[in-house]
């Protein structure tokens, strides 16, 4: 990579951060600002877990724990030491990010060490257990707010830092994969015995992956603490870990692009559904039935219908249209059933049901994740535009 491109990407990143800061903080309502901030943090979490899970192949399912360590460490320190006159808040926030990252890295080191002996599912349960232990420890420590909240954290909200961290995190992972060092991480994922026979220091690679990945999560935690000013152990429950893991797998294990997009979509989906107006029981049943039909047919098509792309796309579209029609018809039919029509379900209640269903359906239809192992590249975009009739999926 030559100097102009390097400078250009720095400039683009800076411009992006500046843009998002001035645009969002200037004109958007508070809750939207918060969504943009949290989305950035989830990007960091997903990409950093992807480093541990997808790239190095260490099955960690307790990522929220590192997020929590960073948040509580930075939050607690900030409550007691922040002095508004001392230095500009953003500088303080950067220092807190570093503190959170260091603390979480240390935790990552502690968790990474057993991973030298444990494999696969055993490691997974240890990371999960580590998360639970951290949560219970916080819940029982009065100074950290116990089960209530650690509040009165100085309010330092900085979108550009959050998205800056996201960009740094993405850049670091991408750089790793672009150089020979990244290959040794991938090699550990593929075959530990062979990589060690080829001179790869498997221990070092695994521990580095944990330290780096958890460090980013810790920095994200520090930012969260100063954005929200009040954090509770529930913010970092097991469900959060699962959601981060889901982002990684759904995007395509090992693909940074996939992690970023899945983080944005999966974060936004439940937030969007929160505000969807209530639907009646009859609609719910009708939609459920038509979705089941669509998935069943789609699954058959994916597994057995090996025709040219064009025909397949037509078949998929036909399935979607067909099941949509079925849904509409059923909806009208079920309206006659009084008990169903009277029942009402709000978006807030339905959102996690829809979330879970989306998860299952995507895994059934595309188990390798949306992006599989592919990455976004300009080549790929160019190819997409050069060909007269590009079809989705032709890149694989």
């Amino acid at each position, binding site marked *: 990579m030559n100097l102009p491109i390097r400078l250009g990407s720095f400039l683009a990143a800076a411009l992006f951060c500046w843009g998002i800061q001035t645009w969002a903080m200037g004109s958007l309502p508070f809750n939207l600002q918060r969504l943009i901030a949290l989305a950035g943090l989830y990007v960091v979490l997903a990409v950093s877990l992807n480093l541990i899970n997808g790239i190095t192949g260490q099955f960690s399912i307790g990522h929220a724990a590192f997020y929590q360590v960073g948040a509580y460490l930075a939050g607690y320190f900030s409550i007691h030491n922040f002095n508004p006159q001392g230095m500009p808040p953003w500088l303080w926030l950067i220092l807190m990010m570093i503190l959170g990252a260091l603390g979480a890295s240390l935790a990552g080191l502690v968790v990474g060490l057993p991973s030298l002996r444990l494999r696969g599912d055993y490691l997974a349960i240890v990371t999960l257990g580590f998360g639970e232990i951290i949560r219970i420890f916080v819940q029982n420590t009065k100074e950290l707010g116990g089960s209530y909240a650690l509040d009165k954290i100085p309010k330092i909200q900085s979108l550009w830092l959050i998205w800056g961290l996201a960009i740094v995190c993405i850049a670091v992972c991408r750089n790793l994969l672009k150089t*020979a060092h990244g*290959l040794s991480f991938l*090699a550990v994922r593929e075959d530990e015995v062979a990589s060690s026979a*080829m001179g790869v220091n498997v221990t070092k690679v695994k521990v580095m992956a944990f330290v780096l990945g958890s460090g980013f999560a810790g920095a994200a935690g520090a930012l969260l603490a100063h954005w929200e000013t009040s954090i509770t152990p529930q913010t970092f429950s097991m469900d959060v870990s699962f959601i981060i893991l889901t982002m990684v797998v759904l995007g395509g294990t090992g693909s940074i692009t996939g992690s970023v997009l899945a983080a944005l979509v999966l974060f936004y989906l439940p937030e969007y559904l929160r505000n969807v107006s209530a639907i009646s029981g009859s609609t719910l049943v009708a939609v459920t039935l038509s979705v089941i039909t669509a998935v069943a047919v789609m699954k058959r098509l994916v597994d057995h219908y090996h025709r040219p792309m064009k025909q397949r796309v037509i078949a998929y579209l036909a399935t979607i249209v067909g099941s949509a029609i079925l849904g509409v018809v059923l909806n009208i039919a079920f309206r006659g059933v009084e008990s169903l029509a009277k029942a009402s379900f709000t978006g807030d209640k339905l959102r996690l049901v829809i979330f879970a269903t989306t998860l299952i359906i995507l895994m059934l239809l595309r188990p390798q994740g949306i992006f599989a192992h592919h990455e976004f590249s300009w080549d790929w975009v160019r190819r997409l535009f050069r060909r007269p009739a590009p079809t989705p999926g032709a890149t694989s």
Partner: protein
Amino acid sequence: MSAPGSDRPVVLQLTDATIKFGGLTAVNQVSFELFQGDLFGLIGPNGAGKTTCFNLITGVYRPTSGKIAYQGNSIGGLPPNKICKLGIARTFQNIRLFGALSAIENVMVGGHLRDPSSLLSALSYFPRAIHETARLREQARELLRIVNLEDVAEVRSRDLPYGKQRRLEIARAMATGCNLILLDEPAAGMNPFEKEDLVKVVRRIRDEYQKTVLLIEHDMKFVMNLCERIVVLDHGEEIAQGPPEAIRNNPKVIEAYLGEAV
């Protein structure tokens, strides 16, 4: 060929190397030595302990007793990556490539051992790391050329045919910059033409690149044709050692192979 004890320096020396798994003695007091530039064969019937011997040398297992020395320094019990760094590389009997990586990336992993750039410089994409990566890629391409795999450099190694996978493993081992290379049944599953090709590749590795080669093989013709000295193991014990002609006529070896045409 020159008799043992020639003027070339000793590369690898096993002295009474022994390993026990529970009650089973897989390798029992095996001793042999390799000189720089040797083309050395390790043969024996199934279950004789050949691969275990390899695992001892490369540090996968720690010897129960006995000594393994590389260039005069004891390496018994060192971790595999350290042993590799000292200059011993290997291939595997049941191919163990990095399936999701392309052929050239597999070779680059081998070369990464000699990559002087730090992880930090890689993470920040410093010119040094970029430069090293480019150099490794070039070196890997060169090695792929030696084993005739240039044309499939960008193919995922999982998708390569069996024979090519075996050759790719050799290239990957070569990339570590080793001095001694251990080949575990490199010709297994190859057809006669591929085997002939492989003989050339192995000779070239020795003659052109001055590596010492230790190989396990089942195909007697292949071994007798290629190797200059041979050790025969049976039930974990060394039963014969010497040049191919001597091995061919050794009654103990013939007995071990139970009448198999040697």
